[in-house]
């Protein structure tokens, strides 16, 4: 009763598969989920579709659906329609990246139903009465810290693939110098009170040149935790 969580071994993430899928034209909709800082957003922005415009939005519970679809903007006394990222990505056949999709309000999620439909049936009718259909190449990648269970069944069902990310991409570790890399590998999966994400390690590494490693640890993690990490690093390499 003291602690109920059974520690399950972490399943490795097949990052090669994620990259392959993101480069495939057949893959239209993906739900990529896992703990923060594992590189989900990075993957959605950088893998496949290189050199093209990518539309990206981060949902919060206050995101109005109109912001996603588009809205009128007054320009010199006239109202002009502006496409939102959903509409623009569809029109241009681009990739649309939606971060933290489960955090969106129900209205925003409702707007996802028609957008996530198959290429033949997906369409959005705008308040201008225009109906937008996806141009070839339109792709939707949703990233999230929460599991797909947080979404309604019907929405879950609309993703071509649903992939859990459990560890950072190897390239992310390679950005760190050797003396921090092992610590980063061992600390990203600790329980949340002690977790140090790769993002934090990258920040520590960026700052250390100017202020030294200990102070960088203090600045990024706070003095007490910074000291704990610093002493563990020193002892680790002894």
């Amino acid at each position: 009763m003291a602690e109920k969580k059974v520690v399950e071994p972490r399943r490795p993430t097949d990052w090669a598969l994620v990259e392959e899928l993101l480069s495939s034209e057949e893959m239209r909709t993906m739900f990529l989920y896992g703990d923060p800082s594992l590189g989900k957003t990075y993957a959605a922005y950088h893998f496949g579709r290189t050199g093209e415009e990518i539309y990206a939005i981060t949902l919060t519970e206050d995101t109005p659906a109109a912001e996603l679809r588009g809205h009128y903007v007054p320009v010199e006394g006239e109202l002009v329609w502006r496409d939102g990222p959903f509409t623009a990505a569809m029109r241009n056949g681009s990739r649309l990246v939606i971060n933290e999709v489960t955090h969106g309000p129900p209205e925003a999620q409702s707007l996802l139903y028609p957008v996530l439909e198959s290429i033949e049936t997906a369409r959005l009718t705008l308040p201008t009465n225009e109906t937008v259909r996806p141009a070839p190449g339109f792709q939707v990648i949703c990233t999230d810290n929460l599991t797909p269970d947080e979404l309604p069944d019907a929405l879950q069902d609309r993703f071509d693939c649903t992939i859990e990310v459990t560890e950072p991409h190897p390239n992310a570790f390679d950005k760190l110098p050797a003396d921090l890399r092992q610590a980063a590998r061992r600390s990203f999966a600790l329980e949340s009170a002690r977790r140090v994400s790769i993002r934090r390690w990258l920040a520590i590494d960026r700052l250390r040149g100017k202020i030294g490693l200990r102070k960088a640890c203090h600045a990024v993690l706070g003095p007490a935790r910074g000291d704990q990490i610093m002493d563990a690093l020193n002892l680790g390499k002894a």
Partner: protein
Amino acid sequence: MGKRPKRRRVRIRKQSAYPTHRTQQHLPYPELVESEPNDTPYRILDSNHIDGLISNGLTNKQDRQLIVPLDQNGHVVSNHELAHVKWSPEIWPKVRYHPNIFLAVEDARVNLGLERIGMPMQVPPSDRVEIAKLAFQDFQRGDYGMLILRGIASLGTDVEEAIFEPLAQADPIIRELGNDLRESVRTRLERAADRIEKPVASDRATGKIAKDVAKRLESYGLIEKCGLTSVAEADGCLVCGPPGEGCGDGDGVLTIDDGARAHTRRERSGGDVDPGTMKIVMAPTPQRILGNQRALERKWRPAAEGSVVTAVHRMPIDGAIFRRPIRHRGGTILIDTSGSMRLSSEEIDRLVRVAGGATMVAMYSGDGDEGELRIIAKDGRRAVGMHLDPYGQGNIVDLPALEWLAEQAMPRIWVSDGSVSGCGDRGSKELRLACADVKRRGQIERLGKVDDAIARMSRRGRRAARVDRTKKKS
């Protein structure tokens, strides 16, 4: 020959031994010093809240458990324990002498190692006084064996002098023995380390030294003889000094072994676990929650951009002819206050404090076959004091509590580690699926921590969505 030391019953006061929000910043990172990576993280407990400890630092590499004081002064103890993680044997061996002897020499070994790598153990002044006091008590009691062991354990630290000091007044034979062991243990450990060009001596060399120390102490009758005993039964790191205050009464305690066993909740394959019976109580709510009490009627606000035109008359005024939905604070928060959540009443208090006027907050937990769901904030008023203390240590009533939540105002937030149980605090697959189903149907969002819920509450009504267009270059 010889008897084994009595099994130590170390008692962990449930819940409070686990790191709280306040103590978390002092958690050490043993995983970073191990030579081999290991997927199972260490379990770290706060020795400030464990009853019956002789020492405030304890490492068990086999069970991957560390007991250290989670406070500023405890950092030096944590470093000492991390040195055990780095250099001590994977499994504490069994020895034919008192296990405290082995551990004292082991302490000397890792402290000298810390000294060699430039991280000497520097004990904070207040603790140094405590440790010196213990040594003096050993002396007064005539427990010279313990006194000498304490001294050996402190080799390489800045409390060494203080511990050996009382020995100067002891019988010359004892004094000589003590000084001799002090010197020989140090030189032998250092030489052994030099020989292998490592910061510390090998396991074998250290074991030999310990055995010799045991022989000497036993021959002088300064320490009781023991049959084959695991070093895991030793009293802990003698150099770390006594545990701090906070060692309270003996109620609601379990032994470390019980705790470790309870670590993994057995799920019964049959799955015939019934949820416990739940009573819903309304705690007295004498205090008003300060803060945003704005009326909740307005659902829209005018805006200059939008897609639904509602106020053409504003065009010449401010152009805010569209309407946009306003989101209000509100909804319902349900907190799992079972033991595994390790919530302190301060944490619950903080959450209740930020709960806006329209938010209802309830907490639940259980014991045996029943539990309680207690409403602790409602209509802008909140409960205080003991009404924020958990009802029981178990979950028991997750299912009825979730069913209750599914009927309350949206958004519905469940603060829980997600582990659920029924009668007897047992879990089952069926029960888990039933809870997952209620959660899904009720559009309940689970957050693992009180802080997440607090962040969620204070985020509300502020941040708008960030739209960023990312141009990618190949």
